[in-house]
């Protein structure tokens, strides 16, 4: 048995990864932004459509990834296939978002926004989602992801507005907690519509609040 050294994380090795984005993939997220009206500045919650970047592990044998050696794969043909399907590939070398740690028997690959602590030989991981989303917005604003198509936001809004969840809550709104959930969901639908309307006027400047 080998003694585990302190600079090796207590985790199993995992595969390297890359981020990809499809123009139909969005998430609606809220952010606290400061709004100044006259001399007063207040913090308000604002909703934004944020590109939903997807992580894909480079695992040989999965989705057309060729094996180079062992668990090391060549995703070249997979990336080509993804690009044909309209995905945008974000090269980890170019955008430098992957951190690699040594672990027993290999390497552990995580996004750079992941904070890792080891306490009592247990690994505690905490992803800074705000920073990650900010990065994805910056990719959008620097035109790396291309111009967003509001049609997909409208589809998402429409889907939520006509969702079964909303219908069920309408029938249960005599219960105070269900009424609160219903109001929250209706508020989200309204915020989504407002966002699309504001985007049509402001364009990508709408994300200035997000990056404050």
């Amino acid at each position: 048995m080998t003694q585990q050294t302190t600079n090796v994380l207590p985790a199993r090795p995992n595969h390297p990864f890359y981020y990809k984005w499809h123009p139909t993939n969005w998430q609606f997220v809220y952010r606290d932004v400061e709004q100044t009206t006259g001399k007063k500045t207040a913090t308000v919650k604002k909703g934004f459509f944020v590109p939903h970047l997807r992580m894909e592990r480079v695992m040989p044998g999965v989705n057309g990834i060729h094996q180079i050696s062992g668990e090391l794969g060549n995703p070249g043909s997979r990336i080509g296939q993804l690009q044909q399907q309209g995905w945008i590939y974000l090269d980890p070398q170019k955008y430098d978002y992957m951190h690699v740690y040594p672990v027993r028997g290999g390497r552990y690959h995580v996004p750079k926004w992941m904070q890792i602590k080891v306490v009592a030989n247990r690994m505690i991981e905490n992803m800074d989602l705000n920073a990650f989303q900010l990065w994805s917005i910056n990719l959008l604003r620097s035109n790396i992801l291309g111009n967003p198509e509001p049609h997909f936001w409208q589809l998402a809004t429409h889907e939520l507005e006509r969702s079964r969840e909303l219908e069920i809550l309408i029938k249960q709104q005599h219960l105070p907690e269900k009424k609160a959930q219903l109001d929250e969901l209706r508020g989200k639908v309204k915020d989504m519509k407002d966002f699309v309307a504001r985007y049509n006027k402001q364009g990508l400047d709408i994300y200035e609040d997000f990056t404050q």
Partner: protein
Amino acid sequence: MPITQYNLSVPTEDLRMTKMISQEIRLLLTDSTNLRNTPFVDFIGSINGMGSDTIRVRKAGLDGFDAFSAFTGATEDSAVNATSLTDGFVDVVCKRNSLAYEITDLASMTGLNQGDIDPFRIAESIANSYEALFANITGAAVAGFTTTKGSTGADLTIAVFLSAIQHLEKADSGKGAPGPYVALLHPKQWADLQDNILAQTTGILQFVAASYEAISAKGSHYKGNFMGVEIYTSSYITDDATDHAGALFAAGALGFATGMPSPVGANEAMEMGEVSIEMDRDSVKAITSVVGHAYLGMSIIDDFRGVTLISAI
């Protein structure tokens, strides 16, 4: 002075032992239930004798893909334009997977009885590990569907589950992916869904829990049927540090290819299912090596037939 267990066993362990090992070896928890023998994952073929480690699945729009269009010619004898055939392909690449153990003769011969750890029990174990490999590869493959349902950092709900079903029913511009559907979820996602099912005040959505017979037939990770969807859990579902990426998909969404090596020159080789197991001797060290090889690959064959379900880790 009375004869006691303590006196007989301490300090020399001559008449009694301080501990005896159990006859039976209890197995540690494993997660090897997978969809290999279900209609939800297609066997594409074997790479043996195919001339490549990759099988290209050919796709063509036939049998109703192209509709008859209204005749637009000027007169009844005007020529009709030829329709171009829609085609595509997906590659399924097989990868070498290996698992090897070494055991000394002394460790093997001191085993208590048949079934104790010896080269043959290890060979059987390697063959069973193939099922875990299949589950692992499936868990990674399903994260790749283009369409996602669910919100980052939020639990999986019935609404998301229903939205995924409805998406499949109107997939590819309303053509719809034919059922039956299956959901492959991380246990945490399944727990979220269970909570949400229990929280429903209406009894319309019935969950049919897996019966003993169903679990016997489909494996321990089969959970039941909800809204016509078979539900399985898998610890191999991947995550992106924020969300688990399970999936809901129809038959034809995924396909796998295999390869079976025929080892030449091995002292002893066995074909155990899809795994080739060989044993080797290092006689000067009195060590037997038991090595298993399996060649397997899986790909999304039809992206329209599946939805990735994301929910908080």
